[in-house]
Structure formats: structure tokens, C-alpha cells
């Protein structure tokens, strides 16, 4: 019998929340361990082996410091399939809000001994540096989507993860649109689904943590928000959130600055 495929979970600049999603798979995680050898997963166990080659590497976090770039290249070189997990790894994360600002000034304000801090000027997604086989969105990622990506890769098919709006998920679930019923600014129409419409399910507007969907006409949505009375400074904030580093959201927030 063939050896089980080797799976590695790696982290760059991130909060570990996406790794926690994998841990939170509970029973499914056990079933997964039957099919793959989880060789490296520091969030789960200190008995790990980050060396050698991987059939699937899950990479969490953005590239934010010089050493992460070297680590990332090494992971890529040793992995057959590299899947980025979460908003940091796919769009730079909330830490990408610093991009285009004076990073030195931030460091001096925040840290007592700024000389110890080695950081890059920008927080960038993994795909800005190495080839990525699949990007899994979200802050954090969705458990079902993660399992789907892993099972699909094991079978050798394309993951059934559709690049469509959160609106479709709301409608399938029968959620009453918060934007239409009370002008709640909701990014759902331009945001990639996969969260099963989590925020609208709790009667809140989507804040776009899965990042823009393909064809994300953010300006048409911003126009709606403006008609409802939203002022430019608030428009900037709406699109400059957890995935504010993603192209469509970044340009829209910049437009109102």
C-alpha cells in the first residue's frame, strides 16, 4: 500500500485562527488523519516534522517580515500542492492596512524597542511571491470549505468552491436582506461566498472577510451606500477591512479617501 499523502500546516504573519478552524474539524479531523499523514501542524502538536516534502501544504498568514519570504519559498519548493488559507494568506490580511503608510512610524509608536523589529514595508499575500494552487478565503476560513479542498485534492478534482456572492447564500438560506430591509451597509453583493452567510444570518451586514468575488463592482455598491447617506470617510472604512488589501476593495476605499 502506498504511503499516505503528507500534509503540512504552516504559518506566516497571522493570528492562528485558520489553523484553529482545522483543529475545530474535530471528528472530521480524525477521519482526515486516516487518509493523510498530518506531518506538521504546530497549532495541534509540538511533535511535528517541518522538513521533507509535502503533498499538500496549507499556508496561513501573509508575508510581513523578511524571514517569512525565505520560509515560504522553501515550503513551495517542497510541496506538490500549496493551498493558502484565510484572508491574510490570500489578501494580506488586516495587517495590510499598513501598506502605503509609514511603517517605521508605526513601529516606533507601538514597540518599546523598535530596533528588534524586522519587517517589510508591506504585508502581502502568498500569491505575490510564489505560485499558489488554491486560495481558500475567509477570516477565518470555513470548515466545510477546508474539508472540501482537502478531499477534492485527494481525489484529484477541482474543489467545488464557487466564486459567487454572499447574496446567493443568503437567498438559499432564506435570510431577509439586511441592506434592502433597513439600509444596513452590507458587502455581501460584492463578496465571495463560503461563510454560509454567517453575518446576515445574525441580522448583520457582511463586512467582506472572504474578499471580493469575481466581478466585484464595488463602485455600484458604494453608490448605493452613498444614496443611503454614507459619508466618504465611512465608505473608506467599509472597504478597508480585513480584506482591504484585495485589489477591488483597496481601489474602492482609495477612491473615497
Amino acid at each position, binding site marked *: 500500500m502506498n504511503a499516505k499523502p503528507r500534509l503540512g500546516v504552516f504559518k506566516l504573519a497571522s493570528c492562528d485562527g485558520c489553523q484553529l478552524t482545522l483543529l475545530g474539524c474535530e471528528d*472530521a479531523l480524525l*477521519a*482526515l488523519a*486516516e*487518509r493523510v499523514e498530518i506531518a506538521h501542524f504546530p497549532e495541534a502538536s509540538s511533535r511535528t516534522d517541518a522538513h521533507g516534502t509535502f503533498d499538500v501544504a496549507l499556508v496561513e498568514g501573509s508575508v510581513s517580515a523578511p524571514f517569512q519570504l525565505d520560509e515560504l519559498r522553501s515550503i513551495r519548493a517542497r510541496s506538490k500542492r500549496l493551498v493558502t488559507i484565510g484572508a491574510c494568506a490570500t489578501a494580506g490580511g488586516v495587517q495590510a492596512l499598513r501598506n502605503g503608510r509609514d511603517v517605521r512610524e508605526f513601529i516606533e509608536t507601538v514597540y518599546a524597542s523598535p530596533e528588534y523589529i524586522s519587517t517589510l514595508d508591506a504585508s502581502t499575500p502568498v500569491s505575490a511571491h510564489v505560485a499558489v494552487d488554491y486560495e481558500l478565503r475567509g477570516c477565518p476560513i470555513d470548515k466545510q470549505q477546508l*474539508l*472540501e479542498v482537502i*478531499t*477534492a485534492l*485527494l*481525489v*484529484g*478534482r*477541482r474543489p*467545488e468552491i*464557487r*466564486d*459567487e*456572492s454572499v*447574496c*446567493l447564500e443568503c*437567498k*438559499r*438560506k*432564506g*435570510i*431577509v*436582506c439586511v*441592506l*434592502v*430591509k*433597513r*439600509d444596513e451597509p*452590507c458587502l*455581501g*453583493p*460584492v463578496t465571495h461566498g463560503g461563510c454560509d452567510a454567517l453575518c446576515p444570518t445574525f*441580522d448583520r451586514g457582511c463586512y467582506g472577510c472572504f474578499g471580493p468575488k*469575481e*466581478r466585484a*463592482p464595488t463602485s*455600484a*455598491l458604494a*453608490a*448605493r451606500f452613498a*444614496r443611503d447617506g454614507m459619508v466618504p470617510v465611512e465608505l473608506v472604512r467599509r472597504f478597508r477591512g480585513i480584506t482591504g488589501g484585495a485589489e477591488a476593495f483597496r481601489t474602492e476605499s482609495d477612491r473615497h479617501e
Partner: protein
Amino acid sequence: MMLARRAQLERLFELAREGGRALIGPTVRDGAIVFAEIERVEQLPIGWRDVQSPGKYRLERRSDDAAFGHVVGPNSAKELFFAPSETLYRAERRPDGKLGFTAHKPPPTAKALIGVRACDLAAMRVQDRVFERSQFRDPQYGARRADTVVIGVHCTEPGSLCFCSSMGTGPRVTEGADLALAERGDELLVDALSPRGEALLAQLEATEASASDHAWLDAAMDASRARMGTAVDVRDLHERLYANLDHPRFAEVASRCLSCSSCTSVCPTCFCSNAVERSDLDGAASSRVREWDSCFTREHSTLHGHAVREQTSERYRQWITHKFGAWVAQFDSSGCTGCGRCIAWCPAQIDVREELAALTNNDRRTPLPSARSCDASQDETLVPRVAEVVSVARESGDVVTLRLRAEGFESFAPGQFSQLSLPAIGEAPISISGRDGAEVEHTIRAVGALTDALCKLEPGEQLGVRGPYGRGWPLDELAGGPVVVVAGGIGLAPLREALRRMIADPARFTDLRLFYGARTPDDLLYAREMLGWVDRPGFRLYATVDRASATWRGHVGVVTRLLKRETVGDRARAIICGPETMMRFTVDALARAGVPHDRVWVTMERHMKCATGLCGRCQLGPYFVCKDGPVFRFDEVASLFGRQGI
């Protein structure tokens, strides 16, 4: 018509729920009047109205306690019968390697609906036509829809987004319900529209309505029509839309449209779906799950990894020309009932009535074919049958022909296709390249996960198969005169069985020529079999390749160059299969040789997924390629063929 106290609603609720029926009606929930299961009269939206404008919906208190003094909310009866997400079947690979497919049947829950407006009753009729009276009947829909009691309500207070009177569907309930109610203060006017309605009505305390009651209702309906919002000019609307496919308004509306799919999701008639494979973690079993989809998603028009409709303008055009246009040719009615939901629930506040007016602001008209009658309706569960691989022939580096032992192909006609599937991987349409008794052949090129896995199957292994589907080559129409067959690449596969039958019938096919273009000499399919044909009198074979080494002594160049060299003759009839670009050039070359469009047949590439015309993906103007095609006489599709974003 009878007159009852409104308090009789209590009794009506009891009667409707008899025998454990789930009663579904309007109720206030999450800031809207939604259609949901209710048990008591107090759960009706008594004393509420919904105020709607483009992209806005608000609940307001009424000054009275009317129970039906509202219009329509975000959802409709659609979700009750056409589930937003449902398992079609389970597929499993047993330890001995054999496959099993088990249909998943929805639990039979009898329903009663109350408070359904005329527009939504019309929507139910439209969906019944799509799911139950098309070529294929959807048993999942049928199981949910069967034995539903429907109590309609005449719409006395239309909203500002309503245009049912334009679409000819309301405001009066005239069909599709068992009972029709009108609310007048603390009274109800009740009409029975079916024997079941008569039986229900007989159990209410009611008296015969007077002439003045009848007059009141007539006047209320007239007043309702008069209060209706902006009207839509529906005269020849489908033909006016198809005459304006290049209207600049499409680009303009695309700058406002979010392509978010809200309109299609709230639409009570939109029926597009996507079926996906949900594999279990152990990889041995999977579920085939069908979900609501929308023509506004990229995936909906994706073909071979490329989206046919990349631009929002193209998707908007797809939606509006289908809903108000092609629908008429497909299902003999508009796909719109005038309920106004797509306007209210559009986050971008687009008003379809304005768009329709702007898009048809001229006198142009393009005729569409009239709807085909579909009396041969058959149940289609979408569940595969198990087939077994008998033998595998390697045709070229990445192409194999699988010979399968499978039942159900008795009626096969050359040019038809099957749906081949493997558990946990997926399903795809594959043309049938031959049939011999109980064995059918499929020639498959490894281009993705499923086709890769299919190409790796070995004799004795099993797979899932559905079919045959679609319309094949018109062999009887070809007989008698010269026939030109033009094939490109793997496009020879769906032509092979047609060629075999023509070769075997020299009396009817005296002059038969095959022009075949492939990438390289190694990519020429069925080379050995074709060499066996060349001795047959009246048959000539012309093969050409795009590139070759200098040792190749055959033709090098595109297939149309061969056609140019040969005298085709204007009596010829032609059948073509290959990539769309190749077919376009071939049709032009044939036209120059004197063969008109109505003597050329092509087989269309579209994103076929369900094979039954129900997932909506392969729609091409008035047709669904999977059931109206894939073979079309070229003049039927000429105006849409090769057009970007259609």
C-alpha cells in the same frame, strides 16, 4: 361566490391542516412578510403592510387589522417545490469495487398554501411547465408539488413595484388555486375554483354572495389595476429584446449591476441550478447535491475553464433576454409574472421595468421560433445507472475509447451523448462514438479530473451513465444526395456512428466525403477503422493535420483548405463537428461552395451539465443545447453562433 365572516379563517386553517398538512402562508419574520409554515390565524401579518421601492422594503403598521393587506415578500412558493439545496443521490464504491447509486427522495409532506397572490399562482404554473411538462419531468419537484392545497387571495392593494396587470397574471385569482379569497373588513368573499375548493367551501359557514358583493370585487380589481405601478409594454417584447442584443443600454446597466444574483434568487420562476459532488472524507462515497444557481455567476457560463459570459453586461443580457424573451419560445409564456421582487430586492436599486423600456426603445423585432410542444414527457431522476467497462482502446496520447456494457441505449441515435460519472469526482456529458448491441462506445479526452479518471478505467471497472440524450444527426434528411462530413479533432467522435451507418448503406449514401482535421498525425482518431472505409465505393477520405514532421506525406493545413480544393457541389448536405471557430470557418467555406445554411448541421458546444434542460446552463437563445440539440441545423442557430457573450 360566497360570503363569510373573516373569523371563518380559523375554520379554514383547521381544514387546510387536516391530515397533517403543513400550512404555509405569509407571516412577519425578520423584518419582512415571508412565506413560511404557520399554524394559527394570528400568525398572519395582521395589521401590517409592506412598502416597497427599488432596493428598499419596509414594514409599516396599517390603520386597520387586515390580514392580507400586503403584497409579496422576499420568498415565494418556489423554495417549497424547487429546493434551494437538495441531495439528488448518493454514490458509493463498495469494497469489491462495484458502484451503487441510490436516489434520494424528498420526504412526502403534503402542503397547503394560503394567501398566494395571482402573480405567484402564475409563477407556480410557470414552474410546473418547466419541471413537469417539459421533455423531462423532475420527480423531486413533482414529489413536493403533488397534492398541494392552494388558497389564493385577490390582490386589492398592489404595491408600487407591482406590474402583474401588464404581464396578464393578476390581480384577480382566476386559476391555479382551489379557493380564492378577498378580504373586506371583517368579511371574506370566497370563490371555489376546483372540486377540492368546493369541498372546502362547503365546510365553511358562508352565505351566497350578493350581486353587490360581486360588483364590489369587480370594482376592487379595477381599482387595483389602476393603482398598479409603472406598466410594461409586453407586445412582442421577446422579439423586441432579441432585436436589441447589442443595445448600448446593456453596458450602461452593467455599470450599476452588482452581478450578485439577488434578482434571480428572489424570482419565483428562475430555475437555474448547479449540481456538485460532495465527497465523503474517506473518498469512497459522495452525494450529488443540486443547488440554486444564477446566470449572474461566472461558473454558470463556464465552458472548458473559460467563462462564456465574462462581462456583467453579457450576464444581464442573458437574464433579461431569457426571462422576457427566450422563455416565450421555450415554455410558451413569459418567465415574468410582474411580482416586482427583482426590483425590491436588488441591492443596486435597478428597476427592470425601466431597463425593458430603455432596451426596446425602437421598432426593431427579431422573430423567435414558436415553442415546441412536449407531449413525450418522461421522468428523469438524474440518477446514473451502473455501466461496466468491456474494453479500452487507446486512440492517441490522451484520448481513449471506452466500450461499455450499459442498458438503456436501445433508442440511441448517432450524435447523441451520455452523462458519464464517477463517485466523488463528478459527471460530464460525453458524446457517444458508437453502439453495438448492448455495448456503447465513448471516446474521451483527458482534460480534467473526471476525464482523466475515466481515461484510466480498466476493463471490468464500473462507472455511472445516464442517457442517451439530445437530438442526433438527421441521417434521413442526408440520404439521397452527396454528403460532406467535416470533423475537427475529437469532433470525429460524435460523427463516427453516423459515418458507420452511412458507409454501411451505400444505396442511400452514394457520395460520401469525410474531411477530417487533427492536430498531428498521431492525433488522428480511428485511423485503422477509417482505412477500412476507403475501399467502399463512393466514399472519399481527406485527412489533414495542423503540424507534422517532414516524413508525413499527407495534407498539412486546416480542414477548410481541403474543402476549398474540392468541388463540393451545391446539392451537398453537410454535417460538422469540431471547435466553434473551426465550424464557423467551415460553414463559410461551404456557403462559398454553394451549400446554404439550411443544408448544414452542426453540433454545439455549450456548458451542458444536467442534460435535461433544467439546470439552465446550456441555454442558447430559444434553445437548450442539451435537449434541443446538440445537433442543430445551422440556420436555426446562425444568428447566435459564435457571438461573444451569448
